[in-house]
């Protein structure tokens, strides 16, 4: 079971001012969780829509189990679960009615559909609201209904675009747990710009920037790549602005009248800085930032 993306490009405008949403992207997706990271506008949602067979790409090929899904999208749709970043519901229907509707569209038999709906409502903690019209749902509940509809047909390929938006910390933790349980026998592509969402669960991380795939490694490999570039510096508040201007600051913590900063830089930023263990966020910021340390600070240690 695998998804093979080959030289994929998608352009929104043609002619002189051609705008590429995706540029020559190649990627292999194996069973497990692929975390797709990138800033807003990096092209993640465009890629998601192409993989979900909603948008036809300008160039390139996508193979699912060896079959071209650009030519025959129906082959994938039977095995696909998709949660778009922005989606809506029929607000006059109850949660259960909406899921029955989606199950119908996915071609599920009624008894199987009803069983799946019951299980998913239980898993996503929505059983109590199953018969309430969706217009009465909170943002988090609607998001969970979205997740439930994506899982209805027990998909072999699950594409979820920013699924944790609107979920509270407890719901996010539950959702990560659910994804981990599901990841054994299917491909999951989880797009987000919140690194913490994928840090603990992704088998592989792909980082996109301005439509291009700039990294595709395991979380550990990515962290190894920045292992000697992560520093901790306790500085005065008066220095903060200058440091933020010159370096990538991945985290800051106020400590009395000073501030403890996690810095990512090719060179030691200051004589007071000490080396520290890298995180995925450090790697993400390092690869997506175009800043280079200034000469004044370089080789300070």
């Amino acid at each position: 079971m695998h998804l093979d993306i080959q030289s994929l490009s998608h352009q929104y405008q043609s002619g002189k001012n051609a705008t590429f949403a995706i540029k020559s992207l190649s990627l292999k997706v194996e069973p497990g969780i692929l975390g797709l990271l990138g800033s807003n506008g990096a092209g993640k949602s465009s890629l998601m829509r192409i993989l979900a067979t909603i948008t036809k790409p300008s160039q390139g090929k996508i193979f699912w189990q060896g079959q071209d899904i650009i030519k025959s999208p129906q082959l994938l749709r039977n095995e696909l679960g998709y949660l778009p970043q922005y989606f809506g519901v029929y607000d006059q229907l109850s949660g259960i009615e909406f899921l029955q509707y989606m199950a119908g569209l996915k071609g599920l038999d009624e008894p199987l559909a009803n069983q799946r709906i019951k299980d998913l409502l239980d898993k996503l903690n929505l059983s109590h609201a199953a018969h309430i019209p969706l217009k009465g749902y909170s943002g988090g509940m609607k998001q969970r209904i979205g997740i439930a509809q994506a899982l209805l047909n027990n998909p072999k390929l699950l594409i979820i675009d920013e699924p944790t938006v609107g979920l509270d910390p407890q719901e996010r933790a539950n959702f990560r747990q659910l994804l981990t349980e599901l990841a054994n026998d299917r491909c999951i592509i989880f797009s987000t710009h919140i690194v913490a969402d994928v840090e603990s669960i992704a088998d592989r991380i792909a980082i996109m920037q301005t439509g291009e795939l700039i990294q595709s490694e395991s979380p550990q490999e990515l962290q190894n790549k920045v292992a000697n570039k992560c520093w901790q510096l306790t500085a005065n508040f008066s220095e903060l602005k200058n440091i933020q201007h010159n370096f990538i600051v991945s985290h800051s913590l106020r400590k009395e009248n000073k501030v403890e900063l996690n810095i990512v830089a090719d060179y030691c930023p200051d004589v007071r800085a000490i080396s520290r263990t890298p995180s995925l966020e450090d790697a993400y910021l390092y690869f997506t930032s175009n800043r280079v340390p200034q000469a004044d600070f370089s080789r300070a240690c």
Partner: protein
Amino acid sequence: MNKVWQCFIADFKQRTRQQSFIVTLLAMSVLTLLYFPSLDAQYQTVMVNGYRGIYNSAWLGACLAMLNIFLLPLICFYLIKNGLELDRQSMTNELIAATPVSKVTYLFSKWCSNVLILIFILPVMLLTLILIQLYYGESYQIDLWALIWPQLVFVLPTLLAVASLAIMFESIKWLRGGVGNVIYFFLWTGFMVQNIQGVSGAGAILSSIRDEVIERFPLQQSSTHIGVSISEGVDAIKTFNWQGVEPTALHLWSIVPLLIICLTCFILAVIFFDRFSQNSRTENKPSSWLKRVLTTQIIRRLDVLFALLSKNFSFTRLLRLELKLLLKGHSTYWAIGLLVLNIVQLFVSKQLLVSIFLPMSWLWCVLVISQLGQLEKQANTLELITYSKSSAVLQSLTSYSAAWVLLAMASMGSVLRFAAMTEWMLLIQLIIAISFTVSLAYFCGAFTGTKRMFEVLYPALWYVGPIQAALYVDFFGVNSEASWQAGIPYYFVAITVVLLLLTVRAKSTRYSMY
């Protein structure tokens, strides 16, 4: 089959669980009541050679079928032309697009849902009809078959075709919006004419009634009339007992073309439906010389001038911005068309000007002013406007004034002509017509939250009023002197004020909800 059923039932529930559906059913019931006035009412509807049938089941069933054949295709089209739009607006379209459901299955379920919604209207009207028959008591014998068969043979196939047409209009990109609404209005007009003149359908019932009246009362020399006519008093109306007709092969034959339309439209819908795909790739064509001149040399300079003139008062500042909001996004060719129509207004004869070119210039603006009153809902900016508002009334009045200014600009050629000819009465009627049209647009937009109602209602009024010169709908002043004598301008001033007050009040209430 499960796919069709689930899709159909969900769509049907979503569309019928809204208050507007109940309101529509009630409105259809009221329409039925109004269509069958008593003998001493101020108006009559179906009259043949000065005769009308007594209100027995045969007469009521046949007349209701005629009303439905003529009116339901218009009302129902706009009622159901939101099946696919609903999925786009509710943003369920991407979820649907990623499922394996086929275009045929999805569209067929939408068609079934459309049909069932339309069929719901018929029992409501029939029930009202039975109450009407019992209330007037001209015949207490309820013949269900006589009431129902004209609806089954004439109305139902029409509704099936309308359901298909609505799907087709929604599937073809350029027919989806206001242009489609206006095009459908003219299709409907053609359908009406064809139906009245045809030997099958409504024309068959009408000629059957007419033949019987002529045979039984050969001395009468009056005409056949379907619609609203002013009653000349109880004594002037003669009634007769019409026993109705049974369905014949000719009647049944009239179903065939409607079924062919139904099937053809559905096939076209399947061909053109994009399955909510997002493959649109815009071509960056260099803008034409004409467009560049119009935007940089004329429109931008006019805007600078307007900004300069309006900067001292909050009302005029907001008016300029509301006008920009109305005009943004419309094609340059639309502006050029408006300019050309204005130039034509300067040179054609007075008759042509009042009855053709001035109404045409206004029809040209329908898709622009139909945005009035509902822009904030469509753009989802209601909360932003509410918290930043200086006054809901000020905002309402500036939107209203912006549309007023637009229609005045569309009539500049006529204004100059009327002033040059010292046709002051026509000028006053023009001002009343602008005020009425804008009030109507604002009312429709604010109360329905969509552009559709005005886009349908206005062409209908436009056709009956200025084009057909019907005195009582002559808001334009085509029958200038007769219109003043009948007091029509005063009625329209009153309607304008009522519509405006209702709209401002509704909008103020809506704002204060936050």
